């Protein structure tokens, strides 16, 4: 063990002096998580997607009232935080000042235009820096326009038959108010999870990058071989197994350190909620063991550093995609995607975290056991293969 500790200490010192480990272990996962949490999670920490928007009703008619109702319903649902302005200029100023991300302006004569079958305009004012919020505002307006288009024909028909009264317009408002439910598909992509979107994304990304951090020491075995230092280790009065043990230990330490740092950093910077720390750490440690095992096979099969790096990248990306790292997998427990997800350490890692957060560490133990099993089996295969690589 002494020799393995020495080799691990040396490897850690070498790796921590390289920029790569800081980028792969901390900066890249944190940065990517921040971006993805904004895209998929709305940037909110609590899982609720809330956009600050404005509404100007210069029309005051029945159709604009229907749109106001739609917006009001979405505000009640927690998707929007709506500020009502008297005129378009005030809303534009609020957008410019950054008080709101976007605003709808329903111009005067809107209802009349709709009733007359004429071209009506519903304006969306958006902050160019608030792309997501503006897109959501445009989507709501577009959806309303579609509904109004269908409704206008109905209204027009009703008018032809002189049936267009307050009841019909109320029905129109009710109909279009239901429409934005589809917009909720954005948060719904991660909505089935017990983790909030941001935490789910950070966790997936963190494990994805730990494929690289935990895989680096096994890559360094190939580097040491090509640099000649492996010869020195192999002719030293230590067991050959100590060299591999040192590399494995380095990978585990790096992986756990990286994940631990991401847990802390994402909690502070992105508002991620990993639940009770012991549960998160146990699942993270098991995840790192699984990842290190998988990557030891990838590194051991390669004949060169470049080949090993490519192989590790392929494995990490494939497992990341299947495991729901990049595209959160929602849906039924029996779906194909869910089945594929459960073939990956990524899927079990997320499940372990979800269970640990929602139901405590005990509930996460099955996932932890699976992760450890993956790590032990793949690690054993990887070490057998790597041991062959040590032969000159």
């Amino acid at each position, binding site marked *: *063990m*002494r*020799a*393995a500790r*020495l*080799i691990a200490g*040396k490897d850690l*010192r*070498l790796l921590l*002096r*390289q920029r790569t480990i800081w980028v792969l272990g901390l900066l890249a996962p944190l940065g990517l998580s921040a971006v993805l949490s904004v895209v998929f999670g709305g940037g909110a920490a609590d899982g609720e997607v809330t956009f600050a928007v404005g509404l100007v009703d210069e029309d005051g008619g029945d159709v604009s009232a229907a749109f106001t109702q739609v917006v009001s319903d979405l505000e009640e649902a927690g998707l929007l935080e709506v500020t009502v302005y008297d005129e378009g200029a005030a809303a534009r100023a609020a957008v410019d000042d950054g008080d709101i991300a976007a605003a709808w302006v329903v111009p005067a004569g809107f209802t009349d235009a709709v009733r007359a079958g004429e071209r009506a305009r519903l304006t969306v004012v958006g902050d160019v820096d608030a792309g997501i919020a503006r897109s959501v505002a445009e989507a709501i307006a577009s959806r309303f326009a579609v509904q109004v288009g269908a409704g206008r024909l109905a209204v027009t028909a009703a008018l032809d038959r002189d049936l267009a009264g307050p009841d019909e317009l109320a029905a129109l408002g009710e109909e279009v108010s239901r429409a934005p439910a589809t917009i909720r598909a954005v948060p719904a992509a991660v909505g089935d999870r017990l983790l909030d979107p941001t935490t789910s994304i950070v966790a997936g990304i963190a494990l994805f990058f730990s494929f690289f951090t935990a895989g680096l020491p096994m890559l360094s075995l190939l580097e040491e071989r090509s*640099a*000649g*230092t492996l*010869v*020195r*280790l*192999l*002719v*030293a*009065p*230590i*067991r*050959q*197994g*100590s060299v591999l*043990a040192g590399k494995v230990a380095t990978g585990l330490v790096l992986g756990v350190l990286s994940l631990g740092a991401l847990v802390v950093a994402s909690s502070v910077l992105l508002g991620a909620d990993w639940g009770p720390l012991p549960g998160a750490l146990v699942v993270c440690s098991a995840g790192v063991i699984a990842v290190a095992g998988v990557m030891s096979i990838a590194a051991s099969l390669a004949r060169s550093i470049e080949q090993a790096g490519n192989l590790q990248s392929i494995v990490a990306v494939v497992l990341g995609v299947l495991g729901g790292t990049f595209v959160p997998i929602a849906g039924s427990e029996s779906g194909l995607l869910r089945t594929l997800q459960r073939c990956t350490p990524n899927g079990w890692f997320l499940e372990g975290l979800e269970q640990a957060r929602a139901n405590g560490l005990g509930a996460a133990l099955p996932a932890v056991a699976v992760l450890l099993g993956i790590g032990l089996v793949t690690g054993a295969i990887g070490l057998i293969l790597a041991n062959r690589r040590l*032969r*000159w």
Partner: protein
Amino acid sequence: MEPDVPAVSAPDAVPDADAPVLRVEGISKRFGSLQAVRDVSLRVAPGETYGLLGPNGAGKSTSISIISGLIDADTGTVEVLGQPVSTRTTAVRASIGLVPQESAVYPDLTARENLRFFARLYDLDRAALDHRVDEVLDVVGLAGRADDRVSTYSGGMTRRLNIGIGLLHRPRLLVLDEPTVGVDPQSRNAILEAVERLSGEGTAVLYTTHYMEEAERLCDRIGIIDEGELKAEGTRRELTTRVGESERLRITASGPLDTAIPGLEALAGVVAASPVDGGVDLLVVDAGSVVAAAIEVVTAAGASVTSVAIEQSDLEAVFLHLTGKALRD
């Protein structure tokens, strides 16, 4: 995890002061269809420097890999201080210091960090470790740059550190695999002086090289190796005696020389002829009586002779005599 085997205290491990530190008996090694080493036997006594002289691909590095326990021989045995050496033995390795041909150091560590790491790997006494590291830094002339990262070193400095790591744990047998290849003259001289000093202190040295000058300067005994076989061994005098009163005639020329070789070999008084870079080496009985005819043959082959040199028998002549080819083929 297997327990680490404690390092052997080298001085206590010597059962007999006169016994060879290294005893190699009939080792052979084949890689596929290539017979890299064939039935090589040699011994190195305490304080003796044994040179393994041969061209690239002669089997020197494979022999060294077997002797240092990096690979196993197909047949034959290696013993250091009476203990067998193989890939499975560990304790005996504390008695061996290997200086690989490549600079096997960590460029992102400083020289001191490199030395400290390997010193601890060889289980050097912690109390004496720093002192020993400083000693070695002095020996290899790196004390002034000890705390700089190796990546900032010149090639020669890196080579010297490479040697420093090999002798750090005071091995009874120091094995150096072509340590001066690609090294500047100053560093080369420093390396040779360090080897001479270690040998003077009683360390057995196995030194491989294809530089005849190094072998002649350093080595008490020399083994001539080619195509995996040890063709001959002995002191320089013993080896040169083998070629008798022969002389080496070197004709420097440009142009086609290969076609001249058969003609040169057919000349009376020519023992062997071999092309070398920029010319041809002849082992001759009497250079004076051969030189004119030899130049004529070379010129007839279409080459242009630029110079002729006649030298007394040396290791190159021995090599030419034993193998039929020049050392620097």
